[in-house]
């Protein structure tokens, strides 16, 4: 019938009915939880709207002027008021608790997550893998393994969003934010910047490629740039002269950095701080704000001297620094070790 009237409209309808797109793919462990909650909210919305529509339509039919010429004045009804205050409140409070639980599930990464760094800039996404793989507007991840993203923006606010995984997080200048996911379905998914960030905002898109662990292994092996992030960091550490003070020896002017990551440190202002990525980054840029107890405030700021990628390498290096052996070796030979040379077991410098 329709296709006689308008072939174009018919084709359009046919196409739409064929693959009726209501949901993005459910490709992460989070997605089913989000969808489940979505259905709860849809349900209360449908019921709520249904009740209101039924009241409006029903009363309109029953009490139209022709049928009911004389209105009956009613003041109100406290019991009814209480009912439609308490029931919506209850439903909304359930939504609040459920939503809060989901929020913490999405934003609290498991401890065993592998970490990938993301740098956002106008208008592209740069991904830095610990193994030294660089990507632009693409992100390769293995499936069935929790992946944490540590993200920062070089300029304005961006927002990192993967609808298929139901995760999103603002990427902010001057500060690390994190998000995590565990992919369940291999495939290629959209990656969007959802925070308006200037002219080419809509071009700041990319794809997330989720691969089986074997494929991912193969991909990491073929696309490495030669040196890992931590190795880049080590080089930067030496060339900025960080090793002069952070040599790890007892008489050093700066604190020993080996195995410092993840510990609590005592600050000069009396408070304690957890050494994490954000702390390390900020300590390099604003050393005075994170003055450690027992050390003189002599560390210069590196604000404006190190790029965000450089900071990421430094953070990754310090994060994986197990001993000061190589720092001292570098100092004594005053030479940077050739990269790529695997350290002998037991000397463990940078864990891979």
């Amino acid at each position: 019938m329709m296709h006689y009237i308008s072939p174009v409209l018919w084709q359009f309808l046919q196409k739409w009915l064929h693959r009726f797109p209501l949901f993005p793919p459910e490709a992460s462990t989070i997605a089913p939880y989000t969808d489940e909650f979505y259905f709860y909210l849809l349900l209360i919305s449908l019921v709520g709207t249904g009740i209101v529509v039924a009241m409006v339509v029903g009363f309109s039919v029953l009490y139209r002027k022709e049928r009911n010429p004389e209105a009956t004045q009613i003041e109100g009804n406290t019991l009814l008021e209480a009912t439609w205050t308490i029931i919506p409140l209850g439903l909304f409070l359930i939504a609040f608790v459920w939503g809060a639980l989901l929020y913490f599930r999405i934003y609290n990464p498991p401890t065993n997550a592998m970490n990938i760094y993301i740098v956002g800039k106008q208008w592209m996404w740069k991904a830095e893998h610990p193994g030294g793989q660089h990507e632009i507007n693409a992100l390769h991840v293995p499936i069935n393994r929790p992946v944490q993203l540590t993200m920062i923006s070089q300029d304005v606010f961006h927002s990192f969003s993967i609808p298929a995984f139901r995760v999103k997080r603002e990427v902010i200048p001057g500060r690390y934010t994190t998000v995590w996911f565990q992919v369940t379905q291999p495939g290629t998914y959209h990656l969007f910047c959802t925070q308006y960030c200037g002219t080419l905002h809509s071009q700041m898109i990319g794809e997330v490629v989720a691969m089986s662990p074997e494929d991912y292994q193969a991909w990491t092996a073929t696309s490495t740039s030669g040196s890992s992030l931590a190795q880049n960091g080590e080089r930067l550490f030496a060339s900025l002269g960080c090793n002069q003070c952070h040599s790890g020896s007892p008489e050093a002017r700066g604190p020993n950095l080996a195995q410092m990551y993840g510990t609590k440190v005592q600050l000069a202002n009396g408070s304690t701080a957890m050494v994490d990525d954000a702390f390390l980054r900020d300590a390099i840029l604003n050393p005075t704000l994170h003055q450690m107890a027992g050390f003189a405030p002599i560390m210069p700021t590196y604000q404006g001297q190190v790029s965000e990628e450089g900071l990421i390498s430094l953070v990754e290096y310090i994060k994986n620094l197990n001993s000061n052996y190589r720092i001292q070796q570098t100092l004594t030979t005053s030479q940077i070790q050739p990269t790529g040379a695997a350290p002998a077991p037991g000397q463990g410098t940078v864990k891979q």
Partner: protein
Amino acid sequence: MDSQVIATQPTSAHGEHGHSPHLRHHFATVAQQREAASFGMWLFLLTEIMFFGGMFTAYLIYRNWYYPAFVAGSHWMIMWAGTLNTTVLICSSFTMAMGVYSAEMRNRKALLRYLFITLCFGIVFLGIKAYEWHDEWEHHHVPGLNFSINDFTHVDQRYPQDKPLAPDMAEKTQAYFSLYFMLTGVHALHMLVGVSILVVLLFHAWRGAYTTGHMTTIENFGLYWHFVDIVWIFLFPLLYLISRHQ
């Protein structure tokens, strides 16, 4: 029904139209008009509180974050100027209150005298403030336009007991000075507006406008002037005093 109890427009006031030349047509009584005017003024002052509120919030946050920078920044405030200005403003508030009182007493001479003194205090305040700003410009303490961290990374003989700041913290003194100039600037703008209105009021008072029983304008201006004084009462300790001891 006793409509006085619940009504805002007393019916008994009918027929009084035209009794007072200052009663506008849509008000029933002078009292109602006066009440409305001062209520309106207070609502306007509420918006002013919120206007400054945004800056006070910023001040509190950054003071928490960059405490040493705020201490160092406040040490460059000229103490005598701040104290003098506070005193000047309090005196002007007092003379303003006395001006309102004189208007109430229908004493034109006293009103003129008090308004004039208030005006002088206002101008003195702005003069001292301008002197301070000039001093800060000379020292390159104006973020964005003329700023250098030099004063904070080195010990100045003016403040020999101060420790020099590390460069990263010295940069943060810009947060202090940005807020200092915003707060004192917006305050001085309010003073400037106040002084300008005061000149007009003086002229009208000279012609005897406020001493015939209609003094809403003077009363409302008084409220404005006192409000500007209150803002300074908070700015003075926040910007000058609370880090003075270190």
